[in-house]
């Protein structure tokens, strides 16, 4: 490995648009935040300057509990990129945060075929590069 033994990260990374920067920073901080509309009370994701429920720009970033429920789930069996060849099959999920918004993620620490819709999960922060943290989810304690 070049560069002092750090392996290159060859999976897709987000382009951090200005309106999503606080989201990615909150994952770096291991304290997920999503947007809340202070006008109508709606929590939402993906990030946007205006509330998708009422179009108000009176929106703020607020911390969330990190608890969620699996809304839908599937298992990827094909490596679309060489970087995934050692990882298939892996889980793909949309989880619904307790606050309401859904986020795309992987439910990990259990076999992909055991991830069921309705499973209670909690966030696990994965620092995948010095600049990028992903929010993966694991079964909530006591399952």
């Amino acid at each position, binding site marked *: 490995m070049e560069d002092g033994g750090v392996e290159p990260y060859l999976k897709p990374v987000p382009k951090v648009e200005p309106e999503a920067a606080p989201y990615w920073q909150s994952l770096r901080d291991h304290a997920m935040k999503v947007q809340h509309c202070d006008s109508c009370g709606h929590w939402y994701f993906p990030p946007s300057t205006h509330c998708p429920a009422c179009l108000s720009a009176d929106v703020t970033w607020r911390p969330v509990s990190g608890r969620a429920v699996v809304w*839908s789930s*599937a298992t990827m069996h094909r490596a679309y990129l060489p970087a*995934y060849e050692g990882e298939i099959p892996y889980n793909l999920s949309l989880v619904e945060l307790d606050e309401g918004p859904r*986020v795309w993620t992987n439910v990990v620490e259990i076999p992909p075929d055991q991830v069921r819709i309705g499973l209670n999960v909690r966030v696990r922060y994965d620092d995948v590069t010095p600049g990028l943290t*992903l929010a993966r989810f694991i079964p909530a304690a006591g399952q």
Partner: protein
Amino acid sequence: MTWPLRGQYAIVGIGETALGKLPGRSTLSLHLEAIKAALDDCGLTIKDIDGLLTNQPIQDAMRSYAVVVATASGLAPDYATDLANGGATPVAMAQHAAMAIAAGLCNTVVCVHARNQATRSQLPERAEVRDGNEDFDEPYGFLGAVANHALMASRHMALYGTTSAQLGAIAVAARRHAMVTPNATSKKPLTIEDHQASRFIVEPLRLFDCSLVSDGGGAFIVTTAERARDLPLPPVYILGMGQHHPHSNLAQAREVATLGGAISSKTAYRLAGLGPNDMDFAQIYDCFTSNTLITLEDYGFCPKGEGGAWVQGGRIELGGELPVNTHGGLLSQAHVEGMLHVTEAVKQLRGLEPAERQVLGAEVGIVSGHGGVGALHASLILGRHAS
């Protein structure tokens, strides 16, 4: 009250290019081939055309695509635009063509779409249009259209007990239809057992639940009913239409076991004064078998959640109660983002297909278009008779 546009506009010409892998063919050249084929089909020339609708090809994006195609065809249209409703676009084109003619902007509109996704023979640095959520799903390994569609299939299965073998019935019907369709690209016999033995791509979706990746194109020509009657082939009349676009991504979807087709079809049935029982066939967008299943339910052919059982036993095959995707669809004919669902509906309603693939006595049919991940939907009811 009857919809004032009902039966006033008709599809009079259709064209389909070669389909499959066409190395070296640009998307633009496929557009031109499709337009020429549609003109030749009905005996018109480019001088008879005054409107043009395109769908900017995502693998070879150019600004103002409609006018690029117009100029390359020798046309200076009085009405032209790109529509961007994903796989719902060809159905939406028929709607916009009728609306533009009704508004007095033009009289005869070519609607065209082509792609070269199989060979991507344009230079690799050419732009691809983004979906808009890549930043939030691709880092988790959501790659390919199948990833998010599999989440829709999973949810339908969890809510209603739909099985993979039931989805297989949709793939088998499409293949049987492709086997009797001359320009279909996948004709090898396919059984439910073959479907069940095929590998998962994104579980619960298997290889044979997924549509083809194709090069090819198609076009159709819309004009007034009055003008249509002077042309050689039987006109196919626009009787009803609708759209509904419930979300742009699954994070913000209200539900995905019901999609935009539920509302879009209701509008189309109301405008046409018809219902699901009046349809002699359905050409249903089939990027994945699960999408076809959800749309058949949304269109009222069976109650929500019962589609899995309903599609089995040959009901959706030629000779069955409701033949679906009589050309083999995106699953087995070719994937031109729904353009060939429209041209196939026209063929069936002309009633001139060989007996092995003609829906006997077809008078009315419905066509669906679906774009994004259940995000966009358009419906079109076509008929043999204007009234």
